[in-house]
């Protein structure tokens, strides 16, 4: 179906061109006055390195691997996230451990290696959706930059500590229970 473009009828005042120009200038000057009288905190621009934007709920930023209270990782290395990941950027190696702790219930598997290539990740959040244990969250940190590619490979301990400082938790570098195959 063809679209019929309606011809705009201009009044003689609009045809003078001068009057519409003046109207336009009044509009821009209104913006000028409004912008110049607004305190800079209230302007639209967020002056980034100095001020930061509070990200909305549900923002998908840097991942965190969740932990139990005793510091044990919640992840059970089920590979669901790695399966779901459209960018194929999650690498997991599982390991067994025998010494069941109270918080972990009857789990006996955990990741030995849990790597996310942040350069490939598209922050889609599918890993979070797929996880049956709620062990991987995407949270609000968006300031991800590095000087070399290697430092964008986040390992298990990096991922467990991504929000440790923000949440006032301890930085972890060790599992509370040793890895050992069941006898």
């Amino acid at each position: 179906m063809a679209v019929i473009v309606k011809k705009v009828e201009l009044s003689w005042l609009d045809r003078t061109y001068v009057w519409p120009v003046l109207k336009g200038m009044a509009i821009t000057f209104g913006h000028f006055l409004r912008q110049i009288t607004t305190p800079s905190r209230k302007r639209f621009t967020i002056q980034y390195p100095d001020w930061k934007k509070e990200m909305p709920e549900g923002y998908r930023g840097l991942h965190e691997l969740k932990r139990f209270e005793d510091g044990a990782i919640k992840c059970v290395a089920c590979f669901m996230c790695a399966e779901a990941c459209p960018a194929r950027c999650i690498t997991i190696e599982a390991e067994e451990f025998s010494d069941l702790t109270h918080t972990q219930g009857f789990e006996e598997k955990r990741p030995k290696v849990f790597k996310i290539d942040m350069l490939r990740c598209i922050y889609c959040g599918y890993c979070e959706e797929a996880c049956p244990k709620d062990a991987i969250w995407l949270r609000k940190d968006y300031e991800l930059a590095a000087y070399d590619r290697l430092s964008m490979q986040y390992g298990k301990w990096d991922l467990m500590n991504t929000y440790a400082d923000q949440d006032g938790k301890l930085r972890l570098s060790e599992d509370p229970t040793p890895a050992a195959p069941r006898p």
Partner: protein
Amino acid sequence: MPTQRPRPWSRPIPPATVIARALHLAPETFWMVVKVLIVLLGPLSLAALLTWVERRGSAMLQDRIGPNRAAILGRWRLLGFPQIVADGLKAFLKEDLVPPHANRVLFWLAPILAFLPAALGFAVIPFGQSFQSGDRTYHMSLLDPGNGMGMLYPMAIGALAVYGVLAAAWGSNNKWSILGGMRASAQMVSYELAMSLAVLAVFLTTGGYDPHEIIESQRGLWNVVPQVVGFLVFFTCMFAETGRLPFDFAEGESEIVAGYLTEFGSMKFALMYLSEYIHIVTASALVATLYFGGWRVPFVADPGPILSVLAFLAKVVFFAWVFVWVRWTLPRFRYDQLMRLGWKVLLPLSLGNFLLQAFLIYRRG
């Protein structure tokens, strides 16, 4: 209380004479040097400030913030003023590149050709009321009244500006540049006509073309009131002459990269860029002189040197701001629209205004 007798040292000695004596110069020579400095450095510094106004002003007009990061010693940002200095330094330190197949002579000449006419145009424009000091009269324009060139001089010099654009365009040996230069020359020639006719009407009502006479004739009523059409035509043509939006066909960055500026870098570019702003200052001064009473202050018959200079400055700054304001309000014309406006609208309007003024003068007898 004893009566105050005038003491010998309280006799008013004109300050200019004092300084001139201290420098062992004749007052005329001293005043000439001062005027040269004012006329050369005034528009130049105004133009530099204008780049700041343009960037911050345009930002404010568009609900942005504009450059505010450059800081002196990394601490004092001063509303982004140091950006001017930073830009200048950057232009100096950049590599001065001449493209391989460019016409080197023209390429080097172009920035000078663009800069000189812009800077020279100011010479006849009075930037304040002439004043009496001692037994001498000091005129506040580089060329004293009655120099025989009058207002024709800035018009002629302004028309030379197109050579800078053309030299840049041809010398760059670049398709975009050629297109830009071609458009610019066509545009400037077309608008020159309407502009000259508008100015002629002013000459007609004044009965002379000396800027001092023109300002003198606007004693009671500024020219803009009886000649509002002429003013509109002249102001529009000034946009075309300075190559500013909505008539920036020479650059047209969305169509032809940067037009005649495409190949220019470092200080050459800075000079071209600055000359555009000096052009704006000169154009504003022309508009103020021709239509807004030059240094005249409303309701003050003789404002005196200081007030008159301030009034003139205020007018120039205002019109320069209007140039910026319009640029960030209006979109660019299409090329055929530009030509139609120039030939079919502005020229007849200007001619009509001219005939009307002539008729009015005839009626008045």
